[in-house]
């Protein structure tokens, strides 16, 4: 049988999905054990026990200096920035994309602007943000907003243009004005697209968050990673990275489930 026609069975599917993770884990454990056997002081590939100790220290015991649980404080600070950034970007991106994609008069001015603005590398203007918005929360949230809003707006604009013109005409023959047409026909059809656009923008949002925290912050997951880097504390960095990955994956999964639950008509394809 040709390779292209071979599909994994039900039980194989799970095993095959787990396989690469298992291989990576085994490779890490073997490498870590070998290095530690060589030199018990090695910090590069900490053992599971060392990492568990670090997590215990960071997440489940009070920091001796501040009396706080640093791991959870960092998580809360980062998630707050990320959440605010994503929420603002979602609203701004949806509004801009909707206007630009639905109303030709707006689109003529907005569309080229969005294209150019989306080409600005957000990290390159991070210093500008720090100068303009100061070093506290606002500049970090703004980096996320500026980084992903144009991407979302352009995606929404594209999706708005893909709505068949027949539907817009039909709605007008049903007595819609421009506003109600947007409210009841265009917007509901774009909301699932917005969730998908957010899902795709999650990766960049995390990137901008960590970058901003690494440069100027006093808490946050990115701040902590870059702080303990000075002590080569891989036993802290690796659990933090795993935690970030888990959070990002959960958000991705949550958005996917939300899309399916909130817009049951969307999955069934277009009529």
């Amino acid at each position, binding site marked *: 049988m040709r390779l292209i026609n071979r599909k994994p069975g039900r039980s194989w599917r799970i095993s095959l999905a787990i396989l690469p993770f298992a291989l990576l884990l085994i490779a890490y454990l073997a490498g870590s054990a070998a290095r530690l056997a060589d030199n018990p002081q090695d910090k590069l590939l900490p053992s599971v026990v060392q990492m568990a100790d670090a997590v215990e220290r960071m997440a489940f015991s009070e920091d001796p200096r501040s009396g706080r649980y640093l791991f959870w404080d960092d998580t809360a600070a980062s998630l707050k920035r990320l959440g605010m950034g994503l929420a603002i970007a979602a609203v701004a991106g949806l509004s801009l994309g909707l206007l630009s994609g639905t109303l030709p008069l707006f689109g003529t001015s907005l569309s080229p602007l969005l294209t150019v603005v989306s080409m600005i590398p957000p990290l390159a203007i991070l210093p500008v943000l720090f100068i303009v918005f100061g070093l506290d929360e606002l500049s970090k949230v703004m980096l996320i907003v500026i980084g992903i809003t144009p991407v979302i707006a352009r995606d929404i604009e594209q999706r708005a243009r893909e709505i*068949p013109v*027949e*539907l817009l*005409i*039909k*709605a*007008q*023959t*049903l*007595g*819609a*004005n421009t*506003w*109600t047409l947007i*409210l*009841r*026909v265009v917007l*509901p*059809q774009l909301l699932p697209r917005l969730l998908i656009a957010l899902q795709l923008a999650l990766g960049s949002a995390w990137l901008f968050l960590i970058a901003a925290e690494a440069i100027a912050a006093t808490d946050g997951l990115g701040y902590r990673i870059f702080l303990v880097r000075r002590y080569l504390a891989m036993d802290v960095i690796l659990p933090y990275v795993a935690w970030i990955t888990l959070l990002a994956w959960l958000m991705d999964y949550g958005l996917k489930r939300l899309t399916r639950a909130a*817009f*049951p*008509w*969307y999955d*069934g*394809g*277009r*009529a």
Partner: protein
Amino acid sequence: MSFIQVRNVWQEYGDQTVLEGLRLNIEEGEFCALVGASGCGKSTFLRLLLGQERPSRGQILLDGQPLAAEPDASRGVVFQRYSVLPHLSVLDNVALGLELPRAPLLGRLFGHAKAEARAQAAALLHRVGLDHALDKYPSQLSGGMQQRLAIAQALIMKPRMLLLDEPFGALDPGIRKDMHALLLELWQETRLTVLMVTHDLSEGFTLGTRLLVFDKVRHDPQAPSAYGARITYDIPLNLDRHATREAVAALPAHVTERLKTA
């Protein structure tokens, strides 16, 4: 004075002429079937009547008044595809037509008004045979049921004119027959003016009271798009079936040939 008056209408896109010198009067309550080969301007003519496009030259009058230049509630339409809103249930697709004109701010009704609109929509859906599918989404319906829904959606507005752009083109022959019967019944009940574009000559005969054949009269082999189509045959159908058959038999071979292959 006729209900629809088409006065020397031309439609040109750049140097491509699609329609030329169209003159036509349509009375209220007529069922016109528009036939012709692919790309000869039937759908363009329908878009002009719908207000989706404006004629390059000439004028279309509705009841003696120039036609509104954008689609509105006085003209219902059913397309071959994308006629129903995928994000609304069957019931909401029809109720929407009652909500939009009455709620210019929010686009939806609440409370008693909403219940009334839904009841009215449900009654019409019952009439077109969709009462078992009120809560389904259009993507869960078959092609024929989607077109039933699209017709109900158009009729809830009580339009004066119903424009159909190959509404049954994508349906199986059996289902198409059912749809023909339904459409004829609805037309007889409402007595509205219907214009239907079709590829299928026999469909035009079954349904129409008048057959309009679109064809190019002039041809320039060097510039195929230089001349547009006109209405070359205008055949009344409901008067005398026998005379009709003779009139059709008298159609030149190239017209009927192209229609059959189209």
